[in-house]
């Protein structure tokens, strides 16, 4: 299993643990709920499931070439960084934005949206070139 896949899978498992912890938190009576449910949902679906799928796909899809079997490595690391940076920004700033606690939280959500979008589009573009017969 290549190094990039190990990072995707292990970070995905950490995100699953975070999502489950948020799920527990949400059930605490009187806990602050503003903006927490969308964060829970996206940590679960994007941070865990999608991240896990991306990591395994980078490993398992047909080789891009014999010299670069998993495509351009810097693109894969860029996808990893962009996905997680975007998601962490959302985890921090969506509840703050919902509660109107930080003036520039809206701008951070736009940056978060852009980073997550960039991660997915880059993955789709690189994976597309590896979807082929023998």
């Amino acid at each position, binding site marked *: 299993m290549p190094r990039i896949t190990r990072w995707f899978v292990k970070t995905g498992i950490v995100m699953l643990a975070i999502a489950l912890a948020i799920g527990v938190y949400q059930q605490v009576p009187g806990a602050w709920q503003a903006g927490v449910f969308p964060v829970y949902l996206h940590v679960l*679906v994007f941070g865990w*499931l*999608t991240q896990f*799928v991306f990591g395994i*796909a980078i490993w*398992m899809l*047909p080789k891009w070439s014999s010299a670069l079997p998993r495509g351009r490595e810097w693109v894969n690391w860029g996808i990893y960084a962009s996905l997680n940076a975007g998601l962490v920004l*959302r985890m921090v*700033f*969506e509840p703050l*934005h919902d509660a109107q606690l930080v003036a520039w*939280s*809206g*701008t*951070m*959500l*736009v940056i*978060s*949206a*852009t980073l*997550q*979008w960039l991660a*997915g*589009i880059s*993955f*789709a573009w690189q*994976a*597309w070139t590896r*979807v*082929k*017969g*023998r």
Partner: protein
Amino acid sequence: MPGLSRFAVRVSLVYLGLGLTLGALILANLGVPFAPLIWTLLPAHIEFMFFGWMTQFALGIAFWILPRFPGSHPRGDERWSQASFALLNGGVLIFAGAALLGADGLTLLGRSLEATALAAFVIGNWRRVYSLRAG
């Protein structure tokens, strides 16, 4: 990778791009509002991500890597799987379109097609889930 898997995985990547674009617009609009009606994209975002991308990608890969049968039809009767992907994509597009246009009657059709798609995939591939060692 067989042709049907290539088709399913590539279509799923298109849905990933579409679903993420809708999601990014919704999140950006939450941060800096620019189009109040953008919330109407939410059902299409969810549909594209769950069924168009994730489910279709998983089924496309499963069709490729599940154990094969000896003989001339290693993946069984492929027409079931072909029908499955056609039904799944029809269902996703009909549900997302109906949700966008407010055509509630068609959402039932969309979801029914998706359920039928899964049934077709199960019928076509159930017997491929076996142990290679058991023979």
